[in-house]
């Protein structure tokens, strides 16, 4: 064991490159030379990175501690190079002597080339895996190394696993070490590696494994061939499953966006027959209100900043609902008898709101914090990544759907809305205050648009024009679903979302838009009233 470790050490030293004296060991690290290279050109920086990676494997602890902050400092541009060497700007220490000093004269911070960036990330992770004080830091470093198993210097993981004190992390490191042994000499290790790789199927794994069919061992060793074949089959199954799930998820996420944009319109259009072209701008205002809530929290309660998306829900709803009610009371109620005029009036309102926001906030995209619950995603199986911002929109849409449905189906107010939708005169005759119902329903539809703006802000850019992107899609969904039915809106959104996602990879996004529109036109020829028609007399 000791001998093996010594051999690894030696191999590491040799791999460490020309800046480690090959015979005497790590004591001979030329610190000033290393810093000089960090400040040098792309080639020198590359060499310095391989020295750093080498230190992760074979240097002594003092050198490793010396090297640990360097790679990160270069990546973060916190290394200021001047005539006397370099300064770590974060701690204010000289990079070589680690004594406090300020950067002299005109300091410059080297920019990593794309190629070097990957090498430095690797060096930083390798050093952190060996030298970082906390388990979480080491685990994060392991995650970084996992992304590029092919580049991990051979033996690093074995040393790291041996030195690792945390049992859980130790197992993870050993697993990765087994995965990385795919091209090792020992066939048993390779078969083990194959099984490990097949545990996490992806296209990259498939490419990696199928390349092995050209390996001499594939022909020579039947065990190895069987392992490769079964791994290939497993990975292919995983990819197929992942693809199906990804398509469903993408469809669902697009559907949730369409649904959120359309549900408010469905209520307004369904109830009053008003084509509200300002709906997109109400979505936009919902997003702006969300931003304002975020900015307010930044000042009033910075500790709650991460929850602005949740805290903004009532605010976004109420503000847009108030705008909707004001719009109805001041403008639209005079135009119920003239649908064309109401269409033009809402268009004018949409232009007005857009330009008002442009004047007040400017045309640039708003900067949103991305709280942890809408950041990144988890790989599930195959190439399917479950992204949290989309999940947020899906959950949001489902909750909105449930609440809206409950409101319309289970409350007296909902009963009134349905009565007015089915037959306005008769509803008025039995004493339903149709005027107030109109106003409240318009408010509800507008408030739902505001919520749509909130749900979309983690996914799309928020700017004064954002509403225009949604208005056409929203109408498509409402018309296809059948005017004024919630169920129709849901089914239409799901259908359009899913069909879009299915067509896009085949014929491209442009064709998908065209084909979906043609399908809707064809469908409406056959069923002009849409998927779900409201029973009852229409004027």
């Amino acid at each position, binding site marked *: 064991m000791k001998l093996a470790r010594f051999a690894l050490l030696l191999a590491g030293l040799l791999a460490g490159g020309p800046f480690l004296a090959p015979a005497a060991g790590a004591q001979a690290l030329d610190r000033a030379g290393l810093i000089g290279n960090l400040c040098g050109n792309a080639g020198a920086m590359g060499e310095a990175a391989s020295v750093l990676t080498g230190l992760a494997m074979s240097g002594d602890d003092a050198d490793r501690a010396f090297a640990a902050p360097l790679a990160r400092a270069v990546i973060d541009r916190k290394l200021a190079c001047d005539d006397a060497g370099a300064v770590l700007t974060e701690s204010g220490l000289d990079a070589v002597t680690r004594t406090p000093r300020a950067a002299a004269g005109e300091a410059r911070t080297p920019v990593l*080339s794309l190629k070097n*960036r*990957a090498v430095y990330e690797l060096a930083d992770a390798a050093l952190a895996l060996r030298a970082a004080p906390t388990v979480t830091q080491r685990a994060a470093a392991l995650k970084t190394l996992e992304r590029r198993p092919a580049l991990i210097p051979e033996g690093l993981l074995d040393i790291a696993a041996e030195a690792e004190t945390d049992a859980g992390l130790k197992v993870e490191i050993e697993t990765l070490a087994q995965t990385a042994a795919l091209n090792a000499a020992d066939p048993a290790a390779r078969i083990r590696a194959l099984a490990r790789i097949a545990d996490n199927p992806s296209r990259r794994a498939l490419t990696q494994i199928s390349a092995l069919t050209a390996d001499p061992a594939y022909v020579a060793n039947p065990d190895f061939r069987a392992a490769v074949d079964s791994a290939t089959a497993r990975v292919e199954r995983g990819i197929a499953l992942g693809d199906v799930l990804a398509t469903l998820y993408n469809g669902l996420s697009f559907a949730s966006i369409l649904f959120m944009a359309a549900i408010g319109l469905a209520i307004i259009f369904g109830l009053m027959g008003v084509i509200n072209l300002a709906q997109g701008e109400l979505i936009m205002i919902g997003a702006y209100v969300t931003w304002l809530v975020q900015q307010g929290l930044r000042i009033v309660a910075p500790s709650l900043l991460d929850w602005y998306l949740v805290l903004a829900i009532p605010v976004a709803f109420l503000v847009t609902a108030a705008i909707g009610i004001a719009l109805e009371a001041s403008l639209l109620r005079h135009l119920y008898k003239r649908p064309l005029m109401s269409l033009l009036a809402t268009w004018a309102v949409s232009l007005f709101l857009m330009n008002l926001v442009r004047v007040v906030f400017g*045309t640039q995209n708003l900067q949103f914090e991305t709280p942890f619950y809408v950041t990144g995603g988890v790989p599930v199986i195959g190439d399917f990544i479950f*992204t949290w911002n989309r999940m947020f929109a899906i959950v949001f849409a489902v909750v909105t759907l449930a609440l809206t449905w409950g409101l319309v189906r289970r409350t007296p107010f909902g009963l009134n809305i349905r009565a007015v939708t089915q037959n306005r005169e008769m509803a008025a005759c039995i004493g339903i205050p149709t005027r107030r119902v109109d106003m409240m329903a318009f408010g509800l539809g507008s408030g739902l648009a505001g919520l749509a703006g909130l749900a979309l802000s983690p996914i*799309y850019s928020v700017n004064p024009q*954002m509403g225009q*992107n949604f208005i056409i899609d929203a109408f498509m969904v409402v018309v296809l679903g059948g005017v004024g039915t919630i169920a129709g809106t849901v089914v239409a959104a799901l259908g359009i979302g899913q069909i879009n996602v299915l067509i896009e990879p085949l014929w491209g996004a442009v064709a998908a*838009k065209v084909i979906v529109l043609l399908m809707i036109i064809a469908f409406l020829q056959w069923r002009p009233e849409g998927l779900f028609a409201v029973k009852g007399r229409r004027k």
Partner: protein
Amino acid sequence: MVNITRRSLLQASGLAAVGLASPLSAPAFLRNAQAQSGPVKLGCLFSSSGTMANLEGRLNHVVRMAADEINAKGGVNGRTIDVLVSDPASDWPLYAQSAKQMLQQEKVSALFGCWTSVSRKTVLPVVEQENGLLYYPLHFEGDENSKNVVYVNSPPASSVLPAVDYLMGEEGVSAKRFFMLGSDYVWPRTINKQLKGYWKSKGIPESAWKEEYVPFGFSNFQTLVNQIRAFADEGGGQPVVVLTVVGNSIPDFMREFANQGILATDIPVLGLDMVEADLEGLDTAKLVGHLNCWAYLQNAKGPANEAFLKNWAANVKAKSVPFSGTVSIDPMVSAYDSVHLWAMAAAKAGSFDVPEVTKAFAGLTFDCPSGYTISMTGENNYVARGVFIGSVNDAQGFDILWQSKDTPKPVPFSPYG
């Protein structure tokens, strides 16, 4: 050979057009002569509404700023400059209409405008018919050489190809596979056609690239990013994305790209239309390392840039311009250069008449904020600019990764298309 014949053909037809046009436009000349005492008018064709507003809108203010600078020094040929602004509302045919109005009714001496190539293509017949002069401040697909348009920014040979070369080179990432994603119009399609021709000439097989287009204003990039990941995982060498989507599709794409966990060290994105302004509102910590290529980056070194940035910040403050005073993008600098190049040409010609001004182009030089001395020759209406490759940093800007030694001679017609 083809180039020369085509150019001479253009020159010949241009001369013929001038010959035909001059007797007809005599009244206009007379009126111009009468107005000799008032300020000389310049027109802007940049949208302050619609999808392009956030980008194009700021160029109006830059043109004004440059005009103010010139006016402060006494104007051109003894006359001050008056800048007229229109709003074509990101509606391509409206650019042509605004251009016609500016040329016919306002008698502007030169137009500064257009961002997308599709808007330039609609304006082109108007400026040719009216014999106006359009300064176009964007880098673009080339393959055009009108005597009525000054192409202030670079054609692909001196912007896109150096960047692609960098990515394919040893210092870049030795890129072997290319995913081209663009908005569906003339600029992305032409650029991608030329890139494919370029790769073919380098012996790269057709299986090494994939091409996808999205409609204008497209924002749901989930499936496309999935496709990019699948493309990258097929193996066969380092993949890169050549991104030619425009407007708000850029931040929406970058957001989805980062959200699916792809870093620049996995698959770098070369965003050909990506500028500092597109990164506003994005968390760029996860986008560090992605690339763009322009003839100017805000981080360019030199006194000219320092002066420009200072003037712009002061101008934003003094005139309460609705754009950020701390962000400066290539087309802004190009628009600024345009006004100065025009003023120098007009001063050299001692006239504001387009044919006279055009004749004065040869030999003009200007110290651009990019730090390069940009120049024009009599050969064509292109301007020789420097080349920058930028790398996204975590402060919503671009670090300069590479820049050319001097200003390469612009090549209008690509041999790869």
